[in-house]
């Protein structure tokens, strides 16, 4: 099994979840209120009340094939709006 970590602006959350669902992920977890810095911008907690919002950290445990299915869509989304995506190995307990 794989573990996919996605970090991006929470304003794009709905779009990303739609992409995940279209690829039939077995599930996903969302942690909002993440902040951070990337090559593009700094996201701070004190800006959450404004329209900018904070980041969302999305974790998906799924098979490689599912990742292959959604790779292009996610890359497209993240390269336009910003954010990062990394894959690592994971074994069910």
């Amino acid at each position, binding site marked *: 099994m794989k573990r996919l970590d996605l970090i991006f*602006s929470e*304003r794009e959350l709905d779009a990303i979840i739609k992409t995940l669902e279209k690829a039939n992920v077995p599930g996903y977890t969302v942690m909002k*209120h993440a902040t951070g810095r990337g090559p593009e*911008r*700094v996201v*701070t*907690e*004190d*800006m*959450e*009340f*404004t*329209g*900018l*919002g*904070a980041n969302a950290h999305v974790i998906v445990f799924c098979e490689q094939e599912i990742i292959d299915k959604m790779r292009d869509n996610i890359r*497209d989304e993240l390269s*336009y*709006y*910003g954010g990062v995506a990394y894959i690592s190995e994971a074994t069910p307990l």
Partner: protein
Amino acid sequence: MEINPILQNVLAPPVLFFLIGAISVLFKSDLEIPAPLPKLFSLYLLLAIGFKGGIEIQKSGFTDQVLPTLSAAILMSLVIPLIGFLILRFKFDVFNSAAIAAAYGSISAVTFISAESFLESQKIAFDGFMVGALALMESPAIIVGLLLVKFAAPKNRPKSRKMYLSAILHESLLNGSVYLLLSSLIVGFLTASSNPSGIAKMEPFTGQLFYGAECFFLLDMGIVAAQRLPRLKNAGSFLIGFAIFMPLFNAFIGVFVARFLSLGPGNALLFVVLCASASYLAVPAAMRMTVPEAKSSYYISTTLGLTFPFNIVLGIPIYMSLVNTVIPLSPL
């Protein structure tokens, strides 16, 4: 320009709490108002402003002054972004220019209520229907900004990101803060017309609590503004100059429009403040979604880090003396 009104403005609790917040950052205190508490106060203020404004509009009815003033307000929020865009294009690309210009065409509700508090402390009358102007100036500036992107930069965008009119209208009218303000205004209006006993029951929440909640929120805004300020350095002196010059310029146009509308000094100040203030709620939300090519630090650092504090601390009394100078002149 007298120094007295500036000092008087600074010595009011809301401005003092704003300064306290800003100073805490300067001195590296760990004072912090964690999320989502600022959101609570921001939602509360929008709801209360809208509700009270709706009641006032229902009470005063649509007098002679209402329609011309509201139309002029909309006009200003259409024109200002265009002027701002032309200025900003000297230095920035279409995306950044449009986003920043939209922010300055739109308004800041907290600057508006600070101006109301200032007028109250100076015992200068103003009308409740000005909240209508506040509510109506948020969306047009967003629409202009997005149309500028649509028509001035169609080739720089991937095809998949084409901007549709429906999306533009959605972002400008259904944006959370625009929607809450407008719909609370309608609730206030309906309550005043069909359920007057509801007004008294809401009063402790939307009325009495307001000033204190404003202070608390300004404490946070002081922290936020002071944290944003150093980031302005990266933005360069052109943008720093713009963040001070543009409000003054807009105020200058605004005061003559106000004179043309024959507004009294109170309403005139509010009108000028609406022109001079810049948005950090509705516009950033819309731009982040639809124009990610623009750097959010540009439109946020300028509006929150410089224009907002400038208006709150110095701008309002400056605009007041501008109003006092221009308005009493013989009518056009």
